[in-house]
């Protein structure tokens, strides 16, 4: 689905990604874990086209996708749920969902979003209760649900999620991971960025550990869970913070 080779990018003159090489197979859930500032967001934004790559290759669905704008990537079936939710705050929940289906409206002039919205409401009934509320007035968890739902509206084959559990209560995090599982069952390929390494590796098939813009460890989730370095650097700390919540 996604193949990345020696990808580099950054901001201004400072390089944030250094020779990233990785891949995501069809139907897989792959996770990227790493501390704050490691370059996870930069990586996802570069794949989606929000940030332009400096060098390297990104092949999405057998097509070179370097230099393709984000508004085109979503047409190819590559969606990103951005960090920090980023819902359209001044618009209603329903309008947010309708905008998620822009791709379909453009592809098919006769498209009507009602059926897809009903499907979302079935999966996430909380959004139905809130459908006429402004998205900015939702709780953090509800906004995250909405951000994921908005990305689902275009039925992408590949969804990237940037720290969907950030700052949310454990119960809501569980709901969000359930949606991710459901997406996989429906055949969607997922690239999940998380700081909550334990949960992420629990759901993922494989994982990459990124540190200061480099991939330092990679492997199957089970291997990473038992890897000493990963345990010390990412799991130990996470366990502490989970208990605190």
């Amino acid at each position, binding site marked *: 689905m996604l193949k990345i080779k020696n990808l580099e990018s950054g901001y201004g003159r400072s390089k944030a990604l250094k020779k990233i090489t990785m891949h995501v197979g069809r139907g897989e859930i792959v996770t990227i874990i790493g501390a704050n500032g490691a370059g996870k967001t930069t990586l996802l934004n570069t794949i989606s086209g*929000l940030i332009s790559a400096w060098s390297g290759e990104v092949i999405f669905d057998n097509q070179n996708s370097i230099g393709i704008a984000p508004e085109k990537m979503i047409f190819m079936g590559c969606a990103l749920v951005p960090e920090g939710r980023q819902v359209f705050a001044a*618009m209603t929940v329903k309008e947010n969902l309708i905008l998620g289906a822009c791709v379909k409206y453009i592809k098919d002039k006769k498209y009507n979003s009602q059926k897809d919205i009903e499907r979302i409401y079935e999966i996430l009934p909380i959004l139905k209760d809130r459908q006429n509320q402004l998205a900015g007035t939702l709780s953090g968890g509800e906004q995250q649900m909405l951000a994921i739902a908005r990305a689902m509206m275009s039925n992408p084959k590949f969804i990237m999620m940037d720290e969907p559990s950030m700052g949310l209560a454990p119960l809501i995090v569980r709901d969000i991971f359930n949606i991710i599982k459901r997406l996989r069952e429906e055949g969607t390929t997922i690239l999940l960025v998380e700081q909550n390494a334990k949960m992420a590796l629990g759901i993922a098939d494989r994982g990459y550990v990124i540190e200061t813009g480099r991939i330092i460890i990679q492997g199957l989730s089970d291997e990473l869970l038992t890897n000493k370095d990963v345990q010390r650097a990412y799991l130990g700390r996470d366990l502490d913070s989970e208990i605190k919540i």
Partner: protein
Amino acid sequence: MNTQLFFQYFVAGVTYGAIYAIVAIGFNIIYNTTGIINFAQGEFVMLGAMTAVTLNNFIPLPVAIILAVIITIIIGALIEILFIRWLVSPSVLRMIIITIGLSIVIREVALHIWGDGIYALPYFTGTALKTLSVGGVFISPQILWVLGICSITVIILNLYFKYTLMGRKMRACASNRSAARLCGINAKNMVTLSFMLSAGIGAIAGCIVSPITYVQYDSGTPLAIKGFTVAIFGGLGNSMAAVVAGLILGILESFSIWLMPTAFKDVISISILLFILFVKPSGIFGNKEALNLKEF
């Protein structure tokens, strides 16, 4: 002051207020999608009126106005495509300087085409001398045209932004540009569209007001200052607030003639502008949150 005179002033105030509001909405639309103030907004008003006056020499008034609005819309699109679209993340200052430069260029071009003569469209119905008596108050039929067309414009704009996909896409871009792009919305096209919309409603304002106020190559600027004041007064980016703010400014100005020499009329708007900028930069209806929740 007797009640009749009071209403006379009031009606005049509401009329100018409606025009200010429309010009302010033009500012707001572009501000919402780009974050910049388009200082050439007043020139759209002038271009609309001038073009309609010229076309009206050859074709009937309604057709001339519609064509003039369309031509101004095309000019708005060209300006955006030629001068704004290709800039890679330009600073606000750079954008402001570009729009000020454009306003000067458009004025000079207009001076070349039309000279410095003063023009006016004919009254849409009746003549300047024919007035309607509404409850003892004499008002020009053109005032009813101004109020009617302004109201319809505001209502249509509202419906457009609330209920059409295109309007929603523009609001999405205003609310969160990168999230909008991730939804498949071409943000650059939305900016072009916002210039077209602003140019169009600026031209409408120019056409309906020119029978009353006349139009000259440089008459866009004073109107733009009023519209800008109103946009700030109501809270930048908030179009419904602009309507209220426009009416308030129009009425204040109108009654100021009663208290002060006419020459001081503009003092009101400049005072309001300075006062708001010093005391409450988010506008009378604005609050800190509203500054983040950009709405049309």
